[in-house]
């Protein structure tokens, strides 16, 4: 069962993270075409090679349904496989394995996985306040009949910060809490970001004291432990082994994946500190036949520092309750003994909305391809990538391998 490693990431493109206020405004279809062209050039493939598409449905600007058909028409390509993926921060990871599975089934040979995340220009009849309204409640639905509209919003439970904060508090009550260990995640990643030309926080280093002295947003989370939303967007091309053989760069084969979700609010999880990263990662490792200690780098979804701590533990990089010690005892930078989020993570690279998860996928691919520039690992053949959506409620994991 599972993937046989017959599909690989062969090319990628990613807009440099920018502030929304200064980033160019482009239609989402326009971004899809632009990112596709860049990713194809990166792979050394041509547009007619693409016969599969994974695209975001929610937040797509020009349409809320019929998105794949509209995009295929705009790109001028015919598809044998079309999929809308709606998994928040783990959408990127979810797209990659869906693409690989469709390829291994023989359904298609090259899949464009894409999420545009720059703002689209406002039309004359468009209401700019719609965006402010959507942001007001974070990812919470305000629709009549939505349980969260009825049982969360009136109490002020909304957005992500307080949800992750409550997970961290529960973790602290069970396992203890060392704020310095959590801060070190942000600090080590910031160090790595200095070696990525596109990282939004390049040129601004950070100390543990800076993190601990930054504004407390929701106990115990400081603002420097929380990801900054940026404009961006990304595309990745997953292709068959035959096509990967023609690719310009070393492909990253998808040899394992896992996915797990069972609730939107962690309030309704069986245990807030046992996250769905566990089953997702175990599935991915089992499929690939590899173990956490076989990984040359871990690209861990990092919307918050606490996300990383829990992911490291639940994915099996260290034992439950040992995460803080693990972080303090290991150097997590690209030159360290446990290189993690070598692009700076989203905390220091920038989080381009749902496309943010692609930053981890693309970093994993670039490390395997040997194209990570100043932060290139000496040996990188096996990479773990995680994705986190919602409030640690939608999780995915990938194992990528160089041939």
């Amino acid at each position, binding site marked *: 069962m599972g993937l046989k490693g017959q599909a690989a990431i062969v090319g990628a493109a990613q807009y440099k993270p920018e502030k929304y206020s200064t980033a160019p405004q482009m239609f989402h279809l326009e971004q899809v075409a632009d990112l596709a062209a860049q990713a194809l050039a990166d792979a050394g493939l041509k547009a007619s090679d693409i016969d599969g598409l994974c695209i975001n449905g929610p937040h797509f600007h020009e349409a809320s349904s019929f998105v794949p058909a509209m995009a295929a028409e705009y790109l001028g390509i015919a598809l044998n496989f079309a999929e809308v993926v709606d998994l928040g921060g783990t959408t990127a990871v979810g797209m990659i394995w869906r693409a690989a599975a469709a390829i291994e089934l023989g359904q298609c040979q090259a899949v464009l996985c894409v999420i545009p995340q720059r703002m689209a220009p406002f039309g004359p009849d468009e209401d700019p306040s719609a965006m402010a309204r959507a942001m007001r409640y974070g990812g919470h639905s305000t629709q009549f009949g939505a349980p969260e509209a009825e049982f969360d919003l009136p*109490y002020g439970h909304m957005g992500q910060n307080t949800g992750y904060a*409550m997970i961290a508090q529960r973790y602290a009550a069970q396992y203890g809490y060392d704020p310095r260990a959590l801060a070190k995640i942000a600090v080590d990643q910031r160090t790595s970001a200095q070696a990525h030309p596109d990282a939004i926080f390049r040129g601004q280093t950070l100390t543990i004291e800076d993190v601990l002295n930054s504004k407390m947003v929701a106990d115990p989370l400081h603002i420097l432990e929380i990801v900054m939303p940026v404009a961006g967007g990304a595309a990745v091309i997953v292709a068959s082994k035959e096509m990967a053989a023609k690719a310009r760069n070393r492909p990253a084969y998808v040899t394992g994946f896992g996915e797990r979700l069972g609730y939107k609010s962690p309030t309704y999880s069986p245990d807030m500190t046992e996250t769905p990263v566990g089953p997702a990662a175990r599935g991915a490792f089992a499929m690939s036949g590899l173990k956490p200690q076989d990984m040359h780098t871990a690209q861990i979804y990092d919307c918050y520092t606490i996300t990383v701590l829990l992911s490291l533990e639940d994915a099996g990089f260290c034992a439950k309750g040992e995460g803080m010690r693990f972080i303090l005892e290991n150097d997590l930078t690209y030159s360290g003994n446990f290189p993690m989020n070598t692009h700076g993570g989203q905390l220091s690279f920038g989080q381009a909305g749902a496309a943010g998860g692609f930053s981890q996928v693309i970093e994993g691919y670039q490390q395997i391809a040997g194209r990570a520039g100043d932060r290139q690992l000496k040996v990188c053949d096996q990479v773990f990538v995680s994705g986190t959506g919602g409030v640690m409620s939608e999780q995915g994991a990938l194992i990528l391998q160089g041939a």
Partner: protein
Amino acid sequence: MSSNKPMPVATSLSAPFWDGLKAGKIMLQQCGDCQQWTFYPRRHCSHCLSHNVAWKEVSGKGTLYTFTVARVPTLPEFAGAELQILAVVELEQGVRVNTTLIGLDPEQIEIGMPVKPVRARVSEDGTVLLRYTGANVDLTERDEVPKAPPAPTADSGPAKQQIAVTDEAALKALVSDEYSAWSNQVLVDQNLINAFAELSGDNYWIHTDPERARKEGPFGGTIAHGALVQVLMSRMQVPLTFEITGFTNMVNYGSERLRFPSPVPAGSLVHSRARVKAVERNKRGTQLTLEFNVHVVGQERPAVINDLVILYM
């Protein structure tokens, strides 16, 4: 009196829960097949999908599963004199609910502590939310419907230092980066906003149409006119520690700077504070610039900044 805080809208599935709270009862669904409990309300049992679920009254008691103090309120409307403490409570029946903790200081709160329900009446239509407090806190219900606070009495405020308008050195010594204490609080409700709309002729829907503002506006409801909040200064007694004497005439000479940096949602309490920003002598007389800042209670960011110039002649 309206407020922009999100309110629960009961459905046919959930009505017994909200109606129960109004009547002083906490109602939960139990499955007749597997005996397990379900929260939030559903047509089916959340454990076995059986439709054989029945509403039962429960004590509502439980233990604190987790909590956080939102140092940045999750919406501007949740700013207030009271800290916003979000919590998850696990009821005796095993289900968990999202709620808030009241009547407790953060240092009194510990995960795993026993907690008990507090019925909080939040709207004039009788809507009650299920909040929580410590098991031994003397609190079972609370009225949270926004009400106008009492107006200040004429002789309230600190003893004032008398400063002659001719005493330039003493006047200059008033200039400070420190603000005064807060004034009394004033409620900015929809009635007041409507009255101002009529008086000023500014009846733009973002101020006067709660329904449309909720659906189309960026603030989840109506907001007060900036100009209204500005003139409400007259209803706020800022406890200044000085009084200037010995002048013939005093004029409000206008404003050096007037800004509305953040909105005041309908139903907000506002208060203000001030500092002396500048003292200047010129041909016309002595000019005092007072920076008045009006804030929604609990909000760090001012709603109005007004550098008011007062001319003493």
